[in-house]
């Protein structure tokens, strides 16, 4: 099968899911679609057709890195601006109802890294060390991001015991050498 056919099949079968995944990260539909398209261009410009079996996972990973790269670039050049811009209103087409709408809306209060950690933990089902590896940060940092996310999300969503991070040993900040 040609790469064009692979791409067509991926977009038609999983395109909406990829956009929805990106939407969890960026919080607005236009940016989510741009993010997915950029990730697909990067993926298919280099990939061979026989690797189709893991292409969707690879695209999701590229989406995450492209999103965080943009976050890094913004913070590098605009260090004095607020790190968390309030996204546009949640798109009604995606956040259709109930819990999904509540969660999608609540995620917009998180910082980019907190949001990435929540998505990797609860959608990608990664462990804390795996999230750290994916983001290039320590498991301790992941634990902090998730803990901060819990403090921000619980006032909006109610108790979130799943955001507890007791499975990772705490590193004492400022410990003696």
């Amino acid at each position, binding site marked *: 099968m040609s*790469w*064009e056919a692979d*791409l*067509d099949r991926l*977009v*038609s079968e999983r*395109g*909406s*899911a990829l*956009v*929805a995944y990106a*939407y*969890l990260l960026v919080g607005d539909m236009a940016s989510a679609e741009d993010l*997915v398209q950029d990730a*697909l*261009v990067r993926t*298919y*410009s280099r990939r061979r057709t026989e690797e189709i079996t893991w292409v969707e996972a*690879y695209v999701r990973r590229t989406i995450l*890195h*492209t999103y*965080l*790269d943009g976050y*890094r670039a913004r*913070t590098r050049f605009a*260090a*004095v601006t607020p790190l968390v811009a309030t996204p546009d209103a949640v798109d009604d087409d*995606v*956040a259709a109802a109930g*819990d*999904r709408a*509540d*969660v*999608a809306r609540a995620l917009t209060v998180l910082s980019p890294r907190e949001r990435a950690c*929540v*998505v990797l933990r*609860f*959608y990608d*089902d990664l462990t804390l*060390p*795996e999230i*750290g*590896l*994916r*983001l*290039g940060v*320590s*498991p*301790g*940092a992941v634990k902090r991001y998730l803990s901060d996310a819990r403090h921000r999300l619980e006032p909006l*969503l109610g*108790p979130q015991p*799943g955001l507890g991070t007791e499975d990772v040993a705490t*590193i*004492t*900040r*400022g*410990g*003696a*050498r």
Partner: protein
Amino acid sequence: MSPDLTRALHDAVDTGPDDSPFSVDALTGRIRRRRTVRAASRGGVAVGAAGAVALGAVWMGGRAPSSALPAARPDAAQGTCGSPVAAFPPATGSPVTLLPGTSDPFASVGALAPGESAARLTGRTFVGQVAVALSPEQSFNASAVAQGETEAALQQLQAALALARRQAAAGRPTLDAQGIAELEGRVARAGEANADASAVLQIVGPDAIYRRDLQLLLAHGSTVVAVGGHENDDGEMFVQGETALRTLELGLQGCDESGDLPPGTYDLYVAYDTDSAGGAEADRIPEDRALAGPWTVDLLAAEPQPTGLPSEFPTDELPLAGGRLVSAERLSPSPTSGWRVVVEVDGDDALRQSVELLALPGHDTTRTVEQAVDGATATTSLEGSIAGWDVTIAAELTEAGDQSITYTFVPTTR
């Protein structure tokens, strides 16, 4: 009732509409252009190389063609020439990542995920930046505070000062009087910065040093064929916030001194000490070392100097990067005027090779001198002088992947 995050996120992603969210046609066009350019570049290499052999052209800067690979030595010590990658214990999550060492401004600036391409090279050296994620404790110990985070910095420094004072009072000092005085000074500066919410401040203490014993390994199959990045190295890394950074180089020659490695796709690993305190090479024990990666490194066939240059062009004085000649013309009709030469090139290290070939003095070729992005085209340029010529080199890269080097040679007053 509180929503379940796992179910809500899976619902949000996996229960959306079935129709395509956007047209694939435009996307296909973008991808096709990029793929066509890459394929054309690779084809050009082969044609150019064949022509060069017929004309007796020389390989300059790029790797000399070779078919030799260091032999596998299953019993070799971990991380040494010919040893198996499997000599390292399985990694279970690594704090070590690789940042692209490319000059491609369109490339990702974030950490490369394992399996991603780290570089496509025609030259003899890989340059990459290794990043180590630090724990808050390590970050604190390195005494580095990230830009802008003035409130957090102030709290962190105040806590550190209080801790140091308590330890001193308890007869277990970790800082002497001078160290405490320095810390007090940093607390004062952080307090001043925090008073101005818009301040962008970088506070780096005198101990902003973090060491990690890092080593680059290039493997073909499962065998280590090149080793680099650790010789005469004290392991010192630059600390920024919760990340420690270090630029490492790896020579692309076989570690058995068999010559330049042949073209192909290789796996790049970073070997590191799992004991973050570091330690001398002599103290290493295999169980304390682990591997991050792999990332892919494509070694491209070396290209000869471009053919078809005007006969009066001084090729001996002005060696050009290997590639396909696009144009070569005088700056003016005068036979004593300079030259503008455009060469289509391949590989992420074309600019670096151009500078090295001309031996432009005063340029650190691992750094960008000037970079500008205009729409879908980025230009990296630098200037210098060699005997008899003022030289400007501009590497142009389009978003579609076209890459060219434009040389401007202006004769100096003789």
